């Protein structure tokens, strides 16, 4: 048990050799489900975790209003920029996107940025790894990655309601952004779910880097900037020179916002199924990488804390 090993050396570095606990029904239960969990109970745990995350985020009202204000300011600025670009081309579309198409991506991006959480709002896992509290989490008879994935599902669900809909509505009502074609709506929903999965995969890896580096926040800052650019938030990727755009689209960041926008505006290339499969491939690859990293970390890891 954590307490036994750590007693008396508060504030120093401690080395732990942990058994690979998550999900194996360890008798050392500190988590919310006592006893050996059967399958339906396990599912119920994750549903409850997601529900509580949803409710917890619903308490940050002031932060949500402030974020919406910022999204709207950036939405107006970027709308002006892409509209001026199209105007300076005499109205000619870029990669199949006309003025309204590009404006659609701008407001979609402002709506999605909270949903895919590029800014690492409430980086709980990072902080728990930095402080060493993650040891307690690892002793719970639930899977650490699945637990935080459930938290993220609850968080994203809440953000769709309060952070996604308002900016998109502003864009549609005031700036001629378009809604997706009705037949594309199911595909848009799939693309958004995959975008959240990819974004969780990226953030989980960044947090898990904290098992090896002293402070993962530096890595998160770098990731944030590369992500903003690679996702098409800084400027829509179709505005980049074609070869450069193709290279940026090979990275996972494009799957979080540009990918959804392509589906929403009906400009997937070469086709809708290929685009969704590409998103799904990144989601699977990143979640698998997260598992691999976690299992390495839990086998032999230096946990910091006092």
């Amino acid at each position, binding site marked *: 048990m954590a307490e036994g090993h750590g007693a008396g050396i508060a504030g120093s570095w401690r080395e732990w050799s942990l058994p690979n606990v998550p999900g194996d029904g360890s008798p050392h239960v500190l988590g919310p489900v006592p006893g050996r969990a059967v399958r339906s109970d396990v599912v119920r745990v994750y549903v409850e975790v997601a529900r509580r995350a949803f409710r917890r985020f619903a308490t940050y009202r002031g932060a949500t209003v402030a974020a919406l204000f910022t999204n709207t300011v950036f939405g107006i600025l970027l709308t002006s920029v892409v509209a*001026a*670009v199209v105007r300076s*081309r005499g109205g000619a579309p870029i990669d199949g996107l006309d003025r309204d198409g590009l404006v659609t991506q701008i407001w979609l991006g402002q709506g999605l940025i909270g949903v895919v959480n590029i800014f690492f709002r409430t980086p709980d896992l990072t902080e728990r790894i930095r402080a060493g509290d993650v040891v307690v989490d690892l002793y719970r008879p639930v899977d650490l990655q699945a637990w935080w994935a459930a938290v993220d599902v609850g968080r994203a669900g809440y953000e769709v309601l309060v952070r996604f809909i308002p900016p998109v509505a502003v864009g549609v009502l005031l700036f001629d952004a378009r809604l997706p074609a009705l037949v594309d709506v199911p595909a848009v929903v799939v693309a958004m779910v995959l975008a959240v999965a990819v974004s969780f995969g990226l953030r989980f890896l960044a947090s898990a880097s904290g098992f090896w580096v002293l402070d993962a926040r530096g890595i998160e800052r770098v990731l944030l*900037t*590369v992500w903003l*650019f690679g996702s098409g938030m*800084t400027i829509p990727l179709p505005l980049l020179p074609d070869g*450069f755009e193709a290279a940026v689209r090979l990275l996972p960041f494009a799957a979080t916002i540009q990918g959804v926008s392509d589906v929403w505006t009906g400009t997937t290339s070469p086709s809708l199924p290929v685009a969704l499969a590409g998103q799904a491939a990144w989601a699977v690859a990143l979640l698998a990488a997260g598992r691999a990293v976690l299992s390495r970390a839990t086998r032999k890891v230096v946990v910091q804390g006092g």
Partner: protein
Amino acid sequence: MADDGSVQLYGRLVGAEVRSAMEYPGPFAASLLTSFAIAALEVVAVAAIFSNVDELVGWSLGEVVLLTGLAQTAFHLSEVAVGQLDRLPDLVRSGRLDTYLLRPRRVLFQVVTQDVDLAALGKLAQSVAVLVVGLAAADVPFGPRSAALLVVSLVGGAVIYAAVWIATTAVTFWLIDSREVSAAFTYGGRQMSMYPLGVFAPSVRTLAHYVVPLAFTAYYPALGLTGRHDPLGAPAGLVWAGPGVAAVTMAVALAIWGTGIRAYRSTGA
């Protein structure tokens, strides 16, 4: 502020920060390089736009790079100086601000010097490089007039950004967390200043003159440096208005900050 020894104190704090960074030269160099590369991505975005157009509302690539260099350099100067204001919400929430109120130095001074962010120097170096490229690409003539206008504009621009940072962060004294609101004006302001004013709607341009005077951080200086007439018809004298506007803006910002400090009620413990 010099009368209470704040200037010497500032020097000593920066010196201590430099010495502590030099204890780990490798990671420090890495953080400088990283922030250099990060800031470069924004310039890439601006330049990429010109793969679609030959000119943007009448401005060439070189002229827009000059705008970007001016906006970024002024912004990062202010970030090095007052970027630590980002931490004010944490100080208020944790109650640590109370200890600052008891010390014989101005609260604002203590907040901005609590931990000088030397990695921001990497961004500053990057933006100076962009500025130099922009000066060359926009064919800005060498000479005392250009040099004087450049110095005056950068100082004025940095003071305007610092004032925006101070005024918007002071919101924390009423609303607890100001970071998002601050970001809309500081980072949003910088982003806006990277493009010619003609890109924006008349209502946005009005705001950029009278509410948050971002037009004076890059747009008018760039007009003055390139010797262009304002396509939007502003009088040529505005080119030199930066420092005056900056002084007024800073005075208003400090008044807002002072009101905020007086309104501050500790979160208690």
